[in-house]
């Protein structure tokens, strides 16, 4: 896809403590695509493994052209999100819990909605536990 925007999402740290602050920046190279429908930034945990996927979103922000927020989106955009105390990152047999920052860009191209999603994983663990999990 030639018109796919190039996205960079970077975190200041990949290992965080419960109630810690996740800081980082995202950049959309060359700015958002011409017909952008939405840009969504979220911090979430999700499960993987044998069970159906569950997710929990602790931070969600959206910029859209309809409400004028897209025009005000700084590029690059820095963020700082305070994380909750739980759930901790976990790598079990049937259940795994991952934490990630996610940027989702949706735009219109040739009459169809396109999207690109960028995920960056990090871990949420108390210092005493990181050695095992």
């Amino acid at each position: 896809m030639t018109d796919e925007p190039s996205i960079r999402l970077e975190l200041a740290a990949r290992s965080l403590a419960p109630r810690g602050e996740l800081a980082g920046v995202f950049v959309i190279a060359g700015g958002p695509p011409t017909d952008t429908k939405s840009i969504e930034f979220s911090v979430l945990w999700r499960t993987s493994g044998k069970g159906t996927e569950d997710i929990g979103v602790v931070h969600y922000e959206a910029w859209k052209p309809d409400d004028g927020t897209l025009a005000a989106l700084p590029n690059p955009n820095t963020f700082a999100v305070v994380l909750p105390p739980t759930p901790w990152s976990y790598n079990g047999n049937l259940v795994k819990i991952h934490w990630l920052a996610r940027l989702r860009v949706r735009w219109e191209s040739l009459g169809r909605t396109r999207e690109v999603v960028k995920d960056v994983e990090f871990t949420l663990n108390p210092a005493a536990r990181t050695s095992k999990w």
Partner: protein
Amino acid sequence: MPQPDPASPSPNSRIKRLMVVWFVGSLVTGFLGMALAVGAMFAQAPAWIMFVAFFAPATVFNLAYAAIFIPKAVRYAREAARNAPSPESTAAVAAGEGVEAGTTPKPILDDERGDFPTVEVVDTKPGKVLLHSLPRAGIPPGCQLGCVAIFAVLWNSIVSTFVFQAINDWNRGQVQWGGVLFLSPFVLIGLALIAVTLYLLLTVFVSLLVGRVEVEVSDHPIAIGGTSRIQLAQFGVVPLARVKVMLVCTEEATYVAGTSQSTAKRDVESKVISHPDEDPSGGALPLAAEFTVPPDAMHSFTAPNNKINWTIRVTGRVLGLLPFSNDFSVTVSPG
């Protein structure tokens, strides 16, 4: 910003249109097949021609439909997903509590949210010796027995009709090996159901002999790395002997397989709290002990389809032979 073309149908309506095409096509080709089969019958054609005439129109239609419309349907479905609200925007309503991905969650009220999101604290009752009396985990054996016994009776009643028919045929010397072969797996399932029913019957019998077992702890929820005292008592006719007490962590994953929902469970960590070989009384009740939750353990976790549960597992022997096992729910909190 170009405005969407109002004449252009949405992906969802295009998927609906494809389904209507399939439904109408299947109906028409079904009737056509039936007409051709009837025509072949009146023309006294061989049986295989009637068979081909019946299935050919529907088969040709479905093959053509699959080749032309399925790639379109997949494309429309993907587009519909891209036009739908993102999973993150819907899940944000629940403010960090777990929801099944892609479903609409209930908003979580402030008074419903505990100190630790996704850590559901088990309800305890006031204990007689220690502060908290733990609830029993899982479905009681009596309920399990009831469900399995009803299913076993229904299954075996139906299967036995065919088995008696097969036995009658056998006695008349008309053995239909195809039928016997077809019936065998159903008979095996019936036997397995009887075995499970007998096992559950034994479990219920043992539970009746043992009576009520109470597990109490001094602290609840128990923090990771924290210590709690534990007290076990029995109120039943036959004494439970060689009692072993363990703190067990179990992962639980619910998934959809075909049209049914299943739950897989696996013990991933266990710590012995009291072992009969190390207990001066040889594991007799009442029993008092102290235990510490491992400092590198995972906290209790509850999401709609994925769980990490902690339990106190009590096992023992009745009359020196019959095995007994009960789990009691406990919450392990992060701090």
